[in-house]
């Protein structure tokens, strides 16, 4: 039977790996921001394609995270998952954002003790909102009128603005992002790079067989050898 490692040890290493992930996201975003500031209009996307590999959207997320960390120095010490960094960074860039100081303070306070994802950050911010108050839609139903509230609401459909939107073309929304094998490979290599610094004894209790690990190393070598080699024409 394979030796099992102590869960507390695994937990400690997991915390370190997660923390490194946060630090790396901020570091990558910071480098991208630095590069973008030096490039002329029209040079950015080609540079990104050549040097970054992942999508523009991913780069923008990293850059937003770095801007957040620039503004709040303690961010890299908190338990903020990358999705939270992206969300808060984007909100910081948005002048109409409803994420105010109170929401940020609550999220940062929670992130001192628990890992906060983007969804959790949003939940915290929403929990601080006051309960909804009735909104005045400027619709009146005369007393004695048989119109029900529902019929009154139907009248609103005649509102020109609303009708224009409903009868017009749908808004342009980006197509759903599909995680490509490229993204998955990059993430896997990033994780392995972070794990390289650990003691080998940390990994001997793995559930993977030596043969499967050797097969992965052969695959990685083949990819490394293929980089920079011109593709054969089909």
């Amino acid at each position, binding site marked *: 039977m394979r030796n099992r490692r102590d869960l507390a040890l695994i937990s400690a290493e997991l915390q370190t790996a997660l923390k490194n992930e946060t630090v790396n996201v901020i570091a990558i975003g910071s480098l991208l921001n630095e590069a973008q500031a030096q490039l002329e209009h029209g040079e950015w996307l080609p540079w990104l394609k050549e040097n970054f590999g992942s999508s523009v959207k991913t780069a923008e997320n990293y850059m937003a995270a770095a801007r957040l960390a620039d503004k709040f120095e303690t961010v890299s010490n908190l338990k903020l998952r990358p999705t939270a960094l992206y969300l808060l960074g984007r909100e910081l860039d948005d002048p109409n954002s409803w994420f105010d100081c109170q929401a940020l303070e609550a999220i940062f306070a929670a992130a001192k003790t628990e890992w906060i994802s983007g969804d959790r950050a949003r939940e915290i911010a929403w929990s601080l909102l006051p309960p909804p108050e009735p*909104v005045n839609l400027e619709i009146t139903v005369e007393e004695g009128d048989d119109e029900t509230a529902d019929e009154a609401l139907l009248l609103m459909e005649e*509102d020109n603005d609303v009708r224009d*939107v409903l009868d017009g073309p749908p*808004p342009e929304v*980006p197509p759903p992002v599909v995680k490509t094998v490229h993204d998955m490979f990059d993430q896997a290599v990033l994780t392995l790079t972070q794990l390289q610094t650990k003691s080998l004894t940390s990994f001997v209790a793995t559930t993977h067989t030596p043969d499967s690990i050797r097969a992965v190393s052969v695959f990685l070598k083949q990819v490394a050898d293929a980089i920079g080699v011109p593709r054969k024409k089909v």
Partner: protein
Amino acid sequence: MSQYETRMTLPEWVMTHSNFARGLDDVRSGRPFDAEIHDGWEYERGRLFGAIAPRNMRLLTRAKNLNPKALKLYIAARHRGLIL
């Protein structure tokens, strides 16, 4: 199997649910449907609203109140059967 107990709801409640905002944000950011969300009705409604409302239409005003224009559009879309 018995029918799940239904309850009355108001558009204001639906639109101020955090999952509604998340659904709206997911559609506008190009994120695929997240089937793991609990209490997914509001999430689905948020996604549907994102497929209808102009991208610059904010859900909340800067004073953190529900945007009346968004509410108006939501109610009208619901009456057209575009949002259930």
